[in-house]
């Protein structure tokens, strides 16, 4: 059976609707990350509750959300202007939700510790150092990276030595080259 012909007014509505949607979206500014408004992270018990028994999944979703807040694709405030104390709270909560997850430490060492502000940079490196002690076997690469950033990026040999000393004392499954950075 041949389907009935489409009335002309329907074709016009579809065309007009499609054009209006494309035009409307073209008028909108591109999505922009807003680091200034980083909210305070929920309490650990609330996060556990919200995870519905899947803390690793929630941690990853929240990490994505955090990354979307601080990436800057163009002009505008960059993540170097974020409240790093609050950012550190977030990263710590996410690591508590998923202790085996590496993304918070990757972000801390590769993104947040890469900002030009030395105070914020030092805060992130110290955070990596602090988190390292909870699981040296998994987290040593980020502390090894922190040693290099402290020594060559910040020109602070004392800080680099302190981190390298922690790597040396942790021993265990850490490769010898990392233990001998001191």
């Amino acid at each position, binding site marked *: *059976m*041949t*389907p*009935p*012909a*489409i*009335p002309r*007014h*329907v*074709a016009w*509505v*579809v*065309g*007009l*609707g*499609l054009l*209006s*949607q*494309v035009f*409307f*979206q*073209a008028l*909108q500014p*591109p*999505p*922009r*990350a807003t680091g200034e408004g980083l909210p305070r992270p*929920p*309490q650990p*018990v*609330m996060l556990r*509750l919200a995870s519905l028994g899947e803390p690793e999944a929630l941690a990853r979703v929240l990490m*994505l*959300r955090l*990354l*979307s807040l601080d*990436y800057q*694709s163009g002009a505008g405030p960059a993540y170097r202007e974020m409240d790093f104390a609050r950012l550190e709270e977030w990263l710590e909560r996410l690591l508590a939700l998923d202790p085996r997850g590496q993304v918070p430490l*990757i*972000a801390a060492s*590769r*993104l947040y510790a890469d900002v030009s502000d030395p105070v914020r940079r030092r805060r992130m490196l110290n955070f990596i150092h602090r988190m390292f002690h909870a699981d040296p076997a998994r987290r040593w690469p980020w502390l090894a990276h922190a040693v290099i950033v402290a020594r060559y990026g910040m020109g602070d040999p004392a800080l680099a030595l302190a981190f390298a000393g922690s790597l040396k004392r942790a021993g265990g499954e850490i490769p010898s080259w990392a233990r001998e950075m001191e």
Partner: protein
Amino acid sequence: MAPLPPWLAVARFTLVEEGRRLPWLVLAVALTGLLLALFAGSLAIAEARQTEGALLAAFLRLSLVLLLALWVTASQMGEIREKRLEMALAGPLSRTGYYLGRLLGWASAAALCALVASLVLTPFAGEGGAWLWGLSLWCELILIAAFSLAATFSFSQVPAGFAAAAGFYLLARTLGMLRVIGEGPLMGGGEALSTRFLDAFMEGLAFLLPDLSRFTRATWIVYGPEGGELPFILGQTGVYLLLLAGVGLFDLHRKSL
């Protein structure tokens, strides 16, 4: 009293038919959300009211969207399966009139849902927060109802229609975030063909989908309303509703009855 025009009678029938059952379900959802939010609030060591408001708002938004999508899909499939659609079109009612009547009926049902939800949220919101949130939820529900209605003429089964509506909704809510992440340094190899293709695909998709991440935000309940978003919400709803109505009408006219 003069009889209603046929398309308005369809709208009235849709509202009355669903109006009997839908508010009870909405109330049950709202009550469940309220209990969960109060429980969560009792666990918070600070800002308990804000915590309750934020959780309740997020819960109501997602639950009502999914509930309405399922309701519209199931109801419209019933219309087709039980031949009520054919009976309606056997009279002096055009397909366009039928479609617009159904759409208007669902928009009215959506208003009822949004009204109940914003009333439940009012004690947790600052001045004006619940009303802006409710208005935005209404717009969001209209769009999801219109999409579900259009999807029922394209898919002939409830699960497929509902899955399409849920997929559309989740993508429309997360696309902005995905685009921002896609432009960030962690994607690595920005020059790789696959990355460029993915970026271009998401940029293209952004032109075709409404940005629902700017609708019905729980932050309006916690930190007060942001009236500046209202023109965008109303504009986006109007424009996208036109597109969805066109697509739905196209599919309905294409259908052999």
